[in-house]
């Protein structure tokens, strides 16, 4: 019985935190507009401005350059949806609202779960717009139902991992000044993957770095799903599951630090 009450309590805390965060996101243009516009902007700049890269000898992605870049922008928006939720956590600590959460919540893990849910909801809004624009722009999709579900499934894991990373930083720093620490490593790891061309066309140091970058597996697998030629699926999902577990521990440590700080 007490176990059921615990689950109910966790759920109600998570839903309450998520509702407030989602409400803030959708009712404040300063948060909502950049979250929608930035991925579109990157998609436009990469898919439009670099379309000639699709003519590079050895570039043989079956669905074309627009779909090739769409996968990167999808995963990037997933990651930044998580990071920007971390900004919200930091802002809540600065304003003192997060302390009220800590005082009121019987199970404080529900607070983190609520923020994670909010990160997913805001990112789903971005993906809806991004996918619509990509399809209207003529993106070729070779993958079928299950493959596309797998593509978006990977992106959900990326969103969760990035949110937990940012939450860990936010709850340790407890100030929006920690923003660069949340953002820059994510930016770094994303751009040190095969963003513009496949791994096989990279050379030198960037090839060496991209070869060991876990994001490469996510990108290659995502591109395989959208083109209907799945590749590195097991590795990608192993990475996708491992990252949230590791950053979940990181976020839990952050929560304990925040609790200790009062």
């Amino acid at each position: 019985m007490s176990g059921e009450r615990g689950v109910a309590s966790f759920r109600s805390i998570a839903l309450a935190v998520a509702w407030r965060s989602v409400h803030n996101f959708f009712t404040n243009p300063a948060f909502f507009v950049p979250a929608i516009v930035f991925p579109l902007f990157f998609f436009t700049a990469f898919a439009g401005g670099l379309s000639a890269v699709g003519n590079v000898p050895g570039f043989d992605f079956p669905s074309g350059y627009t779909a090739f870049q769409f996968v990167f922008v999808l995963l990037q928006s997933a990651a930044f949806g998580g990071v920007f939720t971390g900004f919200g956590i930091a802002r809540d600590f600065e304003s003192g609202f997060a302390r009220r959460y800590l005082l009121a919540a019987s199970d404080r893990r529900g607070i983190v779960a609520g923020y994670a849910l909010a990160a997913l909801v805001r990112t789903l809004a971005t993906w809806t717009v991004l996918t619509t624009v990509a399809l209207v722009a003529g993106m070729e999709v070779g993958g079928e139902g299950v493959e596309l579900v797998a593509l978006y499934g990977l992106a959900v894991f990326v969103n969760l991992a990035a949110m937990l990373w940012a939450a860990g930083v936010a709850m340790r720093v407890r100030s929006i000044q920690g923003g660069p620490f949340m953002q820059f490593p994510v930016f770094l790891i994303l751009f040190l993957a095969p963003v513009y061309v496949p791994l096989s066309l990279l050379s030198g140091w960037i090839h060496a770095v991209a070869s060991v970058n876990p994001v490469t597996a996510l990108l290659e697998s995502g591109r395989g799903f959208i083109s209907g030629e799945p590749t590195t699926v097991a590795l990608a999902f192993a990475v996708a599951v491992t990252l949230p577990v590791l950053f979940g521990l990181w976020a839990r440590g952050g929560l304990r630090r925040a609790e200790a700080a009062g």
Partner: protein
Amino acid sequence: MSSGLRTQVGQLARRSVLRTMRQPAQIVPALVFPLFLLAVNSGGLKSATNIPGFPTDSYLTFALAVPFMQGALFSVMNAGTDLARDIETGFLNRLALTPLRGAALLSGLLAGAVVLGLVQALTYLTVGLVAGAELVTGLGGALVIVALSVSITVAFGTIGLFAALRTGSGEAVQSLFPVFFVFLFISAMALPLELLQTPWFHTVASVNPVTYLLEAFRSLLFEGWEPEKLALGFGIAAAVLAAGMLAASTALKTRLVRT
């Protein structure tokens, strides 16, 4: 320039330079971020040099023009944020009580942008050349690159001043950064104009002044002396400077009337 005006400009310029140099948070990102993107893009897009018609066999050389533009974008933020802070803290109100001239205020505030522009240009060029970029115009070309970079940095800085005076908010100035990033991304930043295949993108990039600023840098790096491209680059910088100063002067008058 009268000695009074010279003194006013000198005092404010000194303050602006010192304030810039004392804020690593302004200098470090302006140096590190463009160089990081240069490293990533020159590695990631190396194979773009295999596209028929690509003008050089070194993507690093081609991409080296971009940090100078990104550095100028940071100048918008830095110059604007500093002035916005002066407005928010009431320092501008105190200046308004003195016989300080508007021209002195604006010129003095840009001194920090000049110094930062110089540091940025020298750093980007040195790092680029050490990493293996070409510079076919030699030392003369290097000097012109630095001069062009500083001109663009100062010109863009006036837009930051205008935004600060118009809004009086550092946060509003910061929010301009993405807007300017759009100008950079929708230009011939990653590929030459003639290789932009998407029709609407080609059209937008063709009318985007950033494309021609990039072409001026690129001409010095791997084409040779191209007077037309250089004239266009410096001309655009001068036009932005004139428009920015005019807009900032008008906004300054309005702001001082308000206070």
